[in-house]
């Protein structure tokens, strides 16, 4: 239970960093922390203490294998989700570099030509 609690703290820290920090690079770091917290959560969903890798070798009991092995599906999902997170991060970095060229600052509170 403790690990889920710590995981949610990680998520909230990322969200706080994304919303409250003014610096663009800090915002990107917050975004990445938030995504990784979700990825960690998905991995924890399939985790079993003392579990074995989900590979069915010859000579293994099927029912025992199902009981012992960890759930492989979340691990697959996390791979996809990491790739998506990476592409989001790459786009964010590219846009923040262009923003720096235009405004000569990374401070989001000074980047306010739009008023929405």
């Amino acid at each position, binding site marked *: 239970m403790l690990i889920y609690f710590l995981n949610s703290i990680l998520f909230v820290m990322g969200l706080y960093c994304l919303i409250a920090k003014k610096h663009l690079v800090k915002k990107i770091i917050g975004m990445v922390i938030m995504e990784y917290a979700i990825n960690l959560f*998905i991995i924890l969903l399939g985790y079993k203490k003392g579990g074995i890798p989900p590979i069915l070798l010859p000579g293994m009991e099927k029912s025992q294998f199902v009981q012992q092995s960890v759930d492989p599906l*979340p691990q697959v*999902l996390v791979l996809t989700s990491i790739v998506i997170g990476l592409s989001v991060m790459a*786009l964010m970095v590219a*846009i923040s570099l262009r923003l720096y060229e235009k405004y000569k600052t990374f401070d989001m509170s000074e980047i306010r030509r739009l008023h929405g």
Partner: protein
Amino acid sequence: MENWLPIFVAAPLGMAFLNLLVTKVFRHVSSYLTMAVVIFLLWLSIRFFGEQPFYYAMGGWMPPLGITLVWDSLSQLLVLIVSIITLAVTLFALPYMQQYTAQSKFYSLYLLMIAGMYGVILTGDFFNLFVFLEIASLASYALVAFGVEAEELEASFKYLVLGGVSSTIILLGIALLYSATGTLNMADMAGILAQGGPKNLIFFIFALFIMGFGLKSAMVPFHAWLPDAHPSAPAPISAMLSGLIIKALGIYCVARIFFIILGIVPIVKTVLMVLGGLSMVIGVFLAVGQWDFKRLLAYHSISQMGYVMVGIGLATPLGILGGLFHLLNHAVFKSLLFLCSGAFEYSTGTRQLKQLGGLMKKMPWTGTSCSIAALSISGIPPFNGFWSKLIIIIALLQAEYYLLGAVTVFVSFMTLISFVKVQKYSLFGSLPKKFQDIKEVPVLMVTGMVILALLCVGLGLLYPFYGQAILESARNLMVEPYQYLQYAMP
């Protein structure tokens, strides 16, 4: 025919990357390739029109293990909307995008966005939904920043932060759903949840999805990115974002997941109606004072999506029908209005209403289309917007929500006022001196706008001919969600 279903996603996705390779050798062909794909997709969606619901197992892996694509009446409605609007927008984009450099990259991102939308609409698997949602969102973040001016980059960054938060929250919801049911297939999940799932967890998932898809569809507490992001993009992309993305990624997912998969509960209906009502009122009040044409239209998008949300959240058969009908109509007239704003900008170089005037004489085709769209959105009788608003108001009164019904009428009136302002300052009045020698926009742009203007007139008057097949079948699926289990799984 059933084996052709994945082509909806594969054709634009493949062409998005092929396009970049081909344009290395033959320059200037990317627009024609895009046009060919879009026409092919329209042909394909017309071929599929009226098919019985079925599922397609990707790669031969049967559900619930494999990923499925599902064709049913709700996805049929959205596929038709997407394919028709993309055709008109692409026709408009061919001459319009000549002003920009790096056109092949534009068309690649555009095709990626289309592929993502078709994927979200057709998929029958939760994680696949998330992946396609991210494909469409990422393409749209990049397209908002396509002009790489200071304001566009700022709007795109804002959109990226909020869009990223919403995607993360949606992924958390999907992970929790997986932990509750042990499956990712939508039909399988609906079957398991129908036998009674963990109540508290389901409520938490509802809350996460309301936040996630509310951000994607710009409901009022989550709307801050929309008025910046939609006007900053090039005009064809504004039309796509306002006309399609917020519907395919927002409202459609709410309709599919809340009504068909999870099963709607009364408190969630109330939340949806409150969000919709707030969006209607606040959106229109923010819109009235705007002088930037595209920004005004963006605020009206928030307001009109509120109508759709109220209609769907009412969850009576008539209310859902009104909501879906308004979704269809809003896709048509809002895309048309954004295209008109693009045409004005193309000819005059500005979109500030105060600097325009008297364009009706110089640009008769654009002006007439703009008038038709403005009359549609403000609900003047023979046009399509009137009928869907009427259905929503009647449904509200039947369900005895008199206050909300009165608010709906009032918002419609405010919409009329703000579009009278648009007409007065842009189309009528005196022509400023510097615009004496402007011309009508190129013929392809006019064609795109005229198609949508004809749809604005036709959708209202021809309802008896297509309503049963397109809208009422989708409504029936949302009212009786257990049908979904019969055809989405073996």
